[in-house]
């Protein structure tokens, strides 16, 4: 189990001083990842989506805000690859430009919930006692409010202004998803920690006088992290979905932000007649989620000390 001591949360952690084994777990993980085709497929997709998010004009030179109302709801053609939506926007261009908001919302909300939820879960699970009681109650308080309900209330309480800048509009959705999204991960982390804690190697480390921080980092985290990564990656997709639902209810992202969620909710009215409007943003959304979950899964397998 000594190898496990060199990793912390991220994949980028290098071996701390004092551990100069030739093969750290990080490099081990990297070696097994390299052999995993799922990893490469998901990375390719993610890189593509990130490129779209950062540099959309690389993929299309059609202005996503240009509406040709007279050609609204046109089917895919050479002129407009994915067809046109209800407003006459070019769906291909809208879908490319939509990556930015959805990816931003998904990624940042996931990072925030992992950080908050993970920390809370570890504290509650490892230390136990009154700290566990307090943290668990706070977790319960937020957990008891369903994500969507909290989202609706929050966005209704702090609505966007006409002049809200792009980042504020996106940031607000990230904030609300983080506030009401972390408790699930906290509870999961806590229960994982509780499962790991009674194990012999943890008891042994404690008996040897390791500091709590070191035990958490070296023994608890690597073992408790696996379910967390799985759920967090799935959550990434859910967050993008919830963003879409909030937009569906009229309180998520607002123009001029373009997102898959907004596109999907706008396309719902066309479900009966022109489903291609719904198809493309849904497809991209599903692919993005798929990519992140596959990556999460691959990384999980690679870092799981027990899988080797």
């Amino acid at each position, binding site marked *: 189990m000594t190898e496990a001591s060199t990793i912390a949360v991220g994949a980028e952690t290098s071996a701390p001083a004092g551990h100069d084994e030739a093969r750290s777990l990080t490099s081990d993980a990297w070696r097994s990842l390299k052999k995993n085709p799922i990893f490469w497929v998901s990375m390719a997709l993610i890189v593509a989506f990130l490129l779209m998010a950062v540099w959309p004009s690389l993929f299309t030179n059609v202005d996503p805000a240009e509406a040709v109302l*007279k050609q*609204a709801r046109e089917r895919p053609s050479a002129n407009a690859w994915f067809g046109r939506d209800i407003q006459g926007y070019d769906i291909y261009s809208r879908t490319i430009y939509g990556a930015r908001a959805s990816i931003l919302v998904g990624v940042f909300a996931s990072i925030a919930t992992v950080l908050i939820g993970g920390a809370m879960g570890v504290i509650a699970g490892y230390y136990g006692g009154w700290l566990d009681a307090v943290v668990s109650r706070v977790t319960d308080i937020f957990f008891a409010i369903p994500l969507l309900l909290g989202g609706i209330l929050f966005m209704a309480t702090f*609505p966007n202004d006409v002049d809200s800048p792009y980042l504020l509009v996106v940031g607000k959705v990230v904030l609300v998803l983080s506030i009401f999204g972390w408790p699930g991960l906290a509870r999961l982390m806590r229960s994982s920690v509780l499962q790991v804690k009674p194990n012999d190697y943890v008891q042994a480390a404690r008996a040897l006088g390791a500091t709590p921080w070191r035990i958490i980092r070296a023994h608890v985290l690597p073992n408790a992290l696996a379910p967390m990564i799985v759920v967090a990656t799935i959550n990434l997709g859910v967050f993008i979905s919830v963003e879409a639902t909030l937009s569906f209810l009229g309180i998520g992202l607002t123009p*001029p932000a373009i997102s898959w969620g907004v596109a999907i909710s706008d396309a719902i*009215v066309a479900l009966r007649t022109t489903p291609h409007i719904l198809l493309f943003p849904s497809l991209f959304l599903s692919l993005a989620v798929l990519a992140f979950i596959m990556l999460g899964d691959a990384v999980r397998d690679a870092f799981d000390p027990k899988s080797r």
Partner: protein
Amino acid sequence: MRGTTRTVAMVAGISSVALLAAACGGGNSDKTTSSSAGGKAGGAVTVRGCNPQNPLIPSNTTETCGGNVLDAITAKLVHYNAETGAPENDIADKIESTDNQNFTVTLKKGYKFHDGTEVKAKNFVDAWNYAAYGPNAQSSGYFMEPIEGFGDTQCTGSGDDPCAGAGKAKAEKLTGLAVKDDYTFTIKTTEKVSNMAVRLGYSAFAPLPDSFAADPKAYGEKPVGAGPFKFDSWTKNTEIKLSKFADYSGKFGGKLDGITFKIYQDEDAAYNDVIANQLDVTDQVPSSAMIDAKYKTDLPDRNAAKSVGVIQTITFAPTKVDPNYADPKIRQAISMAIDRDTIIKQIFNNTRQPATGWVSPVVDGYKANQCGEYCVYDAAKAKAKLDEAGGFKGGKMTLAYNADSSHKGWTEATCNSIKGALGVDCVATPVVDFATFRTQIASHKMKGMFRSGWQMDYPSIENFLAPLYKTGASSNDGQYNNPEFDKLINEAAAQTDPAQANAKYQQAEALLAGDMPAIPMWYSTATFGWSTKVTGVKITAFGTIDFASLSLK
């Protein structure tokens, strides 16, 4: 029915009291709505309903959900013809006046409330006094405003309780109402009103039984009217059941034994139920089924559409709130930059009619093209007009709408049209819901442009002008102020000849084209769908279901 006031009536109604009395007074019973071939008597139907916002008291119901139910159970002095919207006497035998200020109402004998008591003159006077009296806080109380003594029945205080202390209303009763005998009462108005009788078909003017005064709260749970259907039960948020009133003596009864309003949260759900024959009539076809007129294939021969007295407009924030739109030339340029025809075709599937003025074509006194060239799309002229005004100084234009109703499609398309023609960025901005939307408008925090719709209260040209554009009027959201306009409106109200009154109103309307307080967009249509079980579905002039003609096959 968020976003719209309750529909009351419409159409080329006879707006003169004298005429009305002459036409309908002499026992001349206008034909009731024709019964459809093949329909059988009896049986019960289910129709789409929505949640009443308030207890079901006629003078406290200003929205369609409760209004539709109340319309079926109440009888009023005047009934609007299902076909044309023209007012016909119902409980009233005669409504007479020689000066547009003093009215004598004579009732027919024999009308009964559902509790068995007879409808008498005092039932009207008491009901109207209750509606007007400030401390009763009735939301439709302002309909009594024209009646003499209304001011004294209102609380004058301010703050948390305007009725406390010195603010208490001076009088409990309207001095303008007097009972002459059991079947006669008089109305005196403060100023001349040219269309008094037309207004009296609004449900706020329904008579209330004596039992109402004893317990208004109980009444709100189980209203008692004198109409063709009586109220059976109300399962909150689920359904409202009505059944035929055996002692109904009016002529608008129809064949049905029972009506159930099934309450839906979503128009799509109701529509799907109609397709599946689980609901008999829906008065709303969702926009998803409007695309490419899908509903016509979903419900072949089981759909109908009819224009109703609703106009959609875009109002500009008051100048002191947002000076960027102050110049009428800018407003006219924006109006000319909107391609109404294409938006109606692509977004509404031609279920709207492009507006050419501020008054719905369904009312008497409507005049086409009052807006003139300013309501005709012309990108080049629009741009030239904007340049003439020195361009737009506010950066980007905004068009706000309430996001809890389906306004996103057309507001966005409208903004795109403006952007395309004027080259100025325009953003359709959602406001979370109707309550917030109205709060922002009422407190004058809303800048730029915002959507506004008007469903008329009664079928008169006056109702499309006075409440919206007269200085200080209740729904003058843009705080439009034009003394010339006000003067013409007042002159029109004093006219005893309906043609002259209409001419004055039309002159007033013409002034709006020069100032553009609001941009006319289009006139609305109601679209219905029904199941295979029913026949004789007729859309009334109000956009509601005509229960007198509806029956089972």
